[in-house]
């Protein structure tokens, strides 16, 4: 190897203006977020189903259980939990797979935008949908299903935030495993459907048969629903539900680790 490393001439910018500072991380994250929101609304069918689905479930099961307040008290927080899962876990698993396979991630990687700012903008879009859905479900619960306003708003917010981060990271992690966009719904539904059934979205998980109980206790959605139920219906405090929060945080750590570790900006070469 030669004694001196090769050097190249640093090139002057082609304009005569003084060298401008790089755009800020926060500014770029915000711009990406605004663009993602704009694009979300421009796909009206996707936007419609995004909001309509949990409300549809709520209307259906609400009608079925209309005479039974006990059951209504189960499905409102249950469906709130499900909507956290679908707006973060499912949406990001789909989106990240799509953007990776379309070559959009690759293009972004060649620009100066910091990866964190870019991904924050995308996550922000998903999380905005989560909050809108939670608000819609809470209002519908109050107006139509006899579920009063949340007893502990702070606890509700804590659990929603924890759930969002946990499921968002797990959704991104799942996208690393999905080979192409055509198979994405198979992978997502293989997890989403059993999870919402076992975790007690539509019935009280405590009443589940014993063999499902063990699995349910291990899954984060069950604990999210416990927390949401405590905040919205039962009035149990955050302190009472710390163990539930702990399970969600545990899954969150796994999710973040897997989301970062397997991250690929390029299409699968097959």
């Amino acid at each position, binding site marked *: 190897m030669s004694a001196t490393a090769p050097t190249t001439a640093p090139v002057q910018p082609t304009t005569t203006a003084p060298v401008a500072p790089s755009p800020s991380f926060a500014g770029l994250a915000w711009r990406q977020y605004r663009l993602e929101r704009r694009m979300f609304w421009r796909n009206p069918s996707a936007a419609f189903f995004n909001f309509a689905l949990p409300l549809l479930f709520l209307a259906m099961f609400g009608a079925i259980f209309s005479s039974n307040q006990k059951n209504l008290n189960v499905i409102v927080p249950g469906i709130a939990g499900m909507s956290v899962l679908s707006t973060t876990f499912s949406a990001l698993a789909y989106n990240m797979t799509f953007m990776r396979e379309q070559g959009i991630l690759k293009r972004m990687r*060649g620009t100066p935008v910091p990866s964190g700012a870019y991904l924050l903008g995308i996550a922000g879009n998903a999380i905005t949908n989560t909050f809108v859905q939670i608000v819609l479900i809470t209002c519908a619960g109050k107006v139509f299903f006899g579920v009063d306003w949340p007893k502990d708003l702070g606890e509700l917010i804590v659990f929603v935030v924890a759930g969002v981060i946990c499921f968002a990271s797990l959704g991104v992690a799942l996208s690393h495993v999905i080979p192409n966009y055509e198979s994405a719904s198979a992978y997502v539904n293989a997890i989403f459907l059993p999870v919402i059934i076992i975790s007690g979205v539509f019935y009280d998980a405590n009443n589940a048969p014993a063999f499902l109980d063990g699995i349910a206790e291990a899954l984060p959605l069950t604990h999210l629903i416990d927390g949401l139920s405590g905040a919205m219906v039962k009035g149990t405090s955050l302190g009472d539900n710390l163990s539930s929060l702990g399970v969600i945080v545990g899954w969150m750590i796994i999710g973040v680790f897997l989301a970062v570790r397997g991250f690929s900006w390029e299409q699968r070469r097959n």
Partner: protein
Amino acid sequence: MSTEKAIEVRGLRKRYGQLEAVRGIDFSVHVGEVFGLLGPNGAGKTTTVEILEGYRDRSEGDVRVLGHDPQQRGRELREQVGIVLQSTGIYRHVSVREVLKHFAAMYPHPRDVEEVIDLAGLRGKEDARTRTLSGGQLRRLDFALALIGDPALIFLDEPTTGFDPAARRDAWETVRQLKELGKTVVLTTHYLDEAQALADRVAIIKDGRILVEGAPADLGAGAGAQNYTVSWRNGSGTLNQEETDDPTTFLHELTSRALAEGVKLDAISVTRPTLEDVYLQLTADS
């Protein structure tokens, strides 16, 4: 032509497990030149360029792009580089102008969006959603997105693949304009006429090694004797070809004989090996 180096590569190697895709490559690209990288598929051309672009790590060697190591993926380098790739996609529910404005905001001193729309030949489509654009228009958008940051160095990956002849001429003109703007361009292409027309210097890669490097016009000269090919149609219309290293004498004899016999020759041409001839000869399986 500047002798300052925009890119310098020494001893570049890339291994994928047992497979060595790039086996010790050295070359440089001067500031302000158009540099062509040619080679068959699987030659290591794409891997080399992806290493320069910062998409791929190298196994060994030194690489300097505009004074930076691309493997560090520093923001400063990415702000000065534009990349036009075949395999990148773009959002579908935005207009051309919106996406250009969005990308412009990532750079410290971007070009004017309207100017870039004109430069890339997208005037008239600036409000169209990207999903309504044709293949050729999407390629022009790729170009625009690579230019919007006003980069000093631009990588063009097979820029005219799938273009009709008119679009190719336009694209070539744009590359010439880039050169006039003082940009450095690294061009990978399969089209040898394109490399011949646009590149100041080229390097031919095969099996992970550079076979030859230099100006397209000079490449043929070094490879063996100064063979000129003279071709003509004689009176009966048959096409004849002869190789010679003294075309003056040969032509004199040919034309004298034709005049003496009262034959009118047609389609007389004297050619030297083109880049294509050199390329095919070098990359033929030996």
